[in-house]
């Protein structure tokens, strides 16, 4: 019995160390000065911790602006994709119409396709045709392409669990489909709606590839800003690490809060 406890502690310690050390290294890098970063042997803790580099990252390197852009894009896109998916999931679960069976296939394909395959097409649609180059609106629209399938998937299984008899009663009361969805179904599945919002928010906030060619200065997101700092400010390691920590915060918070659903979202609810 005691032996088993010791083994468990060892296993936990090893896995926790491997998982957390890379993240810890990023955090302490953001709290070290340039010379402290280059110290040999390396400091395993920040010798003179200071928030100075966070302030510089936010103001001198416009991190605040880029974080705001990312947040605005993610908040708006998550709302749009959750709402659009709610309507579509209701239609799939409550109506019979042609093309319904192709949905599953379409979603799996969308989940699997490398985003880079349509990069050129998106560049032409958003930057050349719609004139939305360096405009956050382009990303708010574009991120629906991966967020709607995930949101429909999550919401569909929740809606399917609501008994159809409930709709029949509501219809007898004279409620329209919109009212059935928003007044009766949504309150029942509000937990899933919240999860769907959080996961689509996270996907939008974390995206890099599309943002890299749609935005340049004004609409730049936090991930693009991080990539950009490599070439522009090759020596500002502390500030770059600070921005990296800030970019990781929503992901860490949402992953820990919605951990059960994060896996559901990543696997399209197939587990």
């Amino acid at each position, binding site marked *: 019995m005691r032996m088993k406890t010791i083994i*468990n502690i060892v296993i936990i310690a090893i*896995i926790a160390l491997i998982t957390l050390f*890379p993240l810890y290294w990023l955090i302490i890098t953001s709290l070290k000065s340039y010379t402290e970063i280059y110290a040999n042997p390396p400091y395993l803790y920040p010798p003179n911790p200071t928030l100075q580099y966070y302030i510089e990252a936010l103001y001198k390197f416009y991190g605040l602006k880029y974080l705001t852009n990312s947040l605005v894009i993610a908040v708006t896109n998550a709302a749009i994709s959750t709402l659009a998916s709610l309507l579509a999931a209701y239609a799939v679960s409550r109506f019979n119409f042609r093309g319904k069976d192709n949905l599953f296939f379409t979603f799996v394909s969308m989940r699997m396709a490398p985003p880079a395959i349509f990069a*050129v097409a998106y560049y032409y*649609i958003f930057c050349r045709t719609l004139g939305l180059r360096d405009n956050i609106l382009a990303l708010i629209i574009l991120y629906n392409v991966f967020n709607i399938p995930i949101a429909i998937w999550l919401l569909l299984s929740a809606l399917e669990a609501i008994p159809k008899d409930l709709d029949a009663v509501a219809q007898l009361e004279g409620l329209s489909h919109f009212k059935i969805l928003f007044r009766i179904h949504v309150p029942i599945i509000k937990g899933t709606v919240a999860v769907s919002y959080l996961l689509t928010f996270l996907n939008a906030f974390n995206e890099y590839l599309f943002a890299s060619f749609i935005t340049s200065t004004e609409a730049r997101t936090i991930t693009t800003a991080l990539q950009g700092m490599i070439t522009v400010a090759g020596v500002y*390691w502390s500030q770059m690490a600070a921005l*990296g920590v800030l970019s990781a915060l929503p992901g860490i918070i949402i992953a820990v809060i919605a951990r059960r659903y994060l896996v559901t979202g990543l696997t399209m609810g197939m587990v």
Partner: protein
Amino acid sequence: MNISKRERLYPLIFTLPALVVYIMLAFIPLIFTIYLSITNVRPGVGTGEFVGAKNFVDVLTDATTLASLRITVIYTAIVVAIELVLGFIIGALMYESITIRKVLTPLLVIPLGLPPLTVGLIWRFLAHPDFGALTYYLRNALGINFNYSVNGLQAFTLTILMDIWMWTSLVAFITLGGMLSIPPEYTESFLVDGASFWHRLRYLYFRMIKSNIIFAIILRFMDSFKVFDQVFMLTQGGPAGATYYISIHLYRIGLTVWDLSRGAALSLVILIIVIIMSNIIIKVMRR
């Protein structure tokens, strides 16, 4: 009459927002990509004329593309194999001990929530040739002169380690999900018989959660095949093409070189591979 017409319109109204998104972001790009792939479009150079299958032949006989496909397949095979074994073991450890499960679950989800680009940044700092902790300990503890920015094999290995760090926990959670649905009597009978941990892995869990394992393989295969952000941040495909995975190649042909037609042809080839794989997934999941 009026009511039945409205009834028929409802599915359309409800699916309209999603439908518009799909026409704009999947259908039109697809048509546009097909158009590019059979013509000769390249800003300043191309004439825009119809060239048939020439772009497909060009791109599939191009040495850079083939090299990129090759290392992507090798990378994918290695990461999927390692993540599967490690993830399966961690999943079993979490299944058998509630303490391990409770403590590790909130930790293991963290890499899954991070922006992949930030994961690239984390590993850049960890493996920096001058100040990375990994570089320092490899040199001082194992005597390995580690510099991923010049050594191709080391860069390739580093991207594999990064992928394992990032995604092993997903496999662990998928396999754990399968194990949790094994009837407890089965596990108990193995424990009563005194079967060793490896014996339980091989003859109990592996047999009981085969469909989860197949699903994990396919999912990880597709995701590592399209790897982009974190590698782009860490190595930008270098040094000397050692980590020039297919998504990075696509991005470069399209948005750096602007060789639009060949890029489009390659996109379609990859899309066809994806569609075949999706069909296999659906078959596996329906079984």
